[in-house]
């Protein structure tokens, strides 16, 4: 098995995710990009788990998936509230904490 390929895939996904988080103005798209980052990490975990024949990495990936689900729930709720208050989900519009 070639570990490298999985690592490259994960790195690519991670970079796409980071780009999405920083470049997208739609809040839902930002959340989705975060999912990409998390899943890039999951790929790394599973890949190493299989490579090292240690199941704890896979278990950890399962935890990450569960936590990511919860995070998305909270994130989408935030977006929904944002939309109700501002009639927009453009995160450039949300700068109430400007110093």
């Amino acid at each position, binding site marked *: 098995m070639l570990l490298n390929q999985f690592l490259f895939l994960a790195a690519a996904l991670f970079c796409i995710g980071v780009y999405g988080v920083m470049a997208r103005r739609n809040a839902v798209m930002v959340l989705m990009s975060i999912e990409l980052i998390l899943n890039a990490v999951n790929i790394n975990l599973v890949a190493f788990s299989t490579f090292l024949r240690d199941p704890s990495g896979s278990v950890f990936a399962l935890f990450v998936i569960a936590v990511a689900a919860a995070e998305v729930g909270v994130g989408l709720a935030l977006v929904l509230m944002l939309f109700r208050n501002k009639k927009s989900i453009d995160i450039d519009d949300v*700068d*109430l904490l*400007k110093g």
Partner: protein
Amino acid sequence: MDLATNMLTKIWILPAVMAGSFVVILLVGKRLPERGRAMIGIVAVALCFVLSLLSAFGWTQRVDSEDAGVVACGSARYQEPIVGGMAEHGDVGAPKSEGGAEADAEAAAARTAPLVVGESAAALPTSVAAEEEGAEEEHHSTPPVMCAWTWFEIGTPGAAVAQESDAHAEGSADGDHAETVSADNQANGLFEFGFLADGLTVMMLITVTFISLLVHIYSLEYLHGDVRHTHYYAFLSLFTSAMLFYVSSSNTLQMLVGWELVGLCSFGLIGHWWEEKDNSDAALKAFLTNRVGDVGLILGVIITFFAAGATSFNVLHLNEYALSDGANQALLLVGALCLFGGVTSKSGQFPLHTWLPDAMAGPTPVSALIHAATMVVAGVYLIARLYAVFFEGLNIQYNSINYVAVIGGITVLGGALLAFVQTDLKKVLAYSTISQLGYMVMALGVGAWTAGVFHLFTHAFFKACLFLGAGSVAHACHHTFEMGKMGGLHKYMKTTYWTFTIATLALIGLFPMAGFWSKDEILAGAAQGQDQSYTLMFVFGVLGAICTAAYMTRAWFLTFRGEYRGHGTPHESPKVMTVPLVLLCAGAVAFGFLNFPFTDTFPFSLMPEGLTLRFEHYVEPTFAFPEEFAHPKFDWRIALLTTVLAVVSMLAAYQFYGPRFGRSPFHGWSKKQPFAFFYKVLVNKYYLDVLYTDIIVRHTKGAVARAAYWVNMHIIDPVVVGAGVVARVAGGFVYKFVDQGAIDRVVNASGTASDESGQLLRRVQTGKVQQYAALFFGGAILFAFFLVLFV
């Protein structure tokens, strides 16, 4: 070492117990019932009494045992005096320069084995004569038991320690003789906190604790329901503690502390009922008069300290210095006279006795304890304790007159004469106390040490009995001491009457009461003297004895005989007051026999030696004490003379104050010239109070006040104003340069700095989430680079 001897090393327990009792009564006394707080004091004193009996037993054992060596404990070293111990024992006084180790070893062999307790480096020289000195074999010296801790030390103690270890090695090689050698470091000052037990101390411990115990018990009833009951019992405990501390001190500094503490208690208890101005005035008078004498005392302590090489305040050291050949006679004389200033005020000697009669304003049990039996003899004790200083300083041995003896003699007669004109029973007893204290001082002044101390001992019992008896009488007669309102009390109060009578006989000095033996010994001492007889003192003493017999008979008749002149019906006091009277009365009868004189005359020559002169045997010091010392012999002629004269004067007083009171041929003579003049002088107490208050005080107080005002206006005020000006200028300077210049600038700068940095950093806070994310990821990348490159 058995329990009793052990007790001698631990006499500090006694003052400590009483101090504890004082603190407890002060702290919890208010919350206890009256009887409870009294019980704390009573139990503590009773414990002390038992312990002092134990220590007395220990001391008698020690005197009787042949090999009484040095017992010392604590950490202080006692230094051998500069020129060695007793001049008589040449080996001890061997010059230091002559011998090295050999001389030390020789000296070690010549001494009996000292018994050194604990880790102490005690080096009391035991100057017991060696066996080879056949002539000296009889002389047996018992050093006191010392228990001292070094307070601080001046000089280098190292050399001394090395010497001692050498000496120890020699001693163990010698087998029988363990020896600690005194340090050869004469320049070292050794200031110790210590306790000293010898016969004199133990005698005082017993006297103080016994009378204090009886007074505590007596006060249960006498001060029943008093306004300041807690205060009273607390002060009694403090007084007992201070007195025990005073008599067991090993050095003059500590004695000074005890001396002042008993003075304080005296002040507090004289003014016990301070609501009446007379009482607080009396307390102040006592305190201030004593201050006058205390100046002399402090000077005396300082002078004797420096005279004896400025190395130690230890009384043995001072005494040994006084006895050494190189002692400075002039310094000793000045020191002794200064010390005698303290004695004059505390022990009521002429002319500073004026406070003592006024001190009768205090409660009667206090008068018995403090102003008759114990505190006022502190001065006598001081002379007895530092006797070598007085003996050598005043040259008692070769003189036939000296200052101490003369003052004692004047006090004997002066006090006794004043007692005649008093109408207050307690005042009679107070002047009688002054007169008796005069006897003691006179005895010490003429060289009759044992007689003086013995009189101190016996006087404590019969005078305490008389005072407590007077208190009992007052208790019966609505708290008055005016003899005009008494009379005929023998019918109402049998126990008080009989005990008072016996104590009166003891005070007069009739055979076989205690006063007879002690007073007779004093008179014999004065008559025989040392090298020459002190004839003048003997005359004073005999005249004093005649007056004593007369004024006591007068007081006795006015109080107990004739018809009752007061109102109401007097009643006998309860048991709690009469039992102490009976016990003291028993002492007044029995204790004279403690020093039963040894005579060759039949049938007394049959007395075994173990029964005669016990007091002299056990109490008189044999260590650091004048050696060539003549003890007065019992003289039938003197005893007979004083007895006959006393009886005659009693009969004369009977003529005057007896059944024919008011009808005697002498009646009214006090109004006739020339007797009226003397009467007036006596009533006015020799005008001493007038001299002190109206002449000395009046003429000095204005001047002193003006001087004080001048000092205030011209010295203190400018100083205060100057200090204010300086403070204001300094404040202005500090405001301008330190506060405004430095501190404020720092504060402002810190504010500005945080403001500027905030302005700078607020630009980062854009509120745009994605910018934060960019910063976050950028930081993460930088951190990752750092990790990869450097870790």
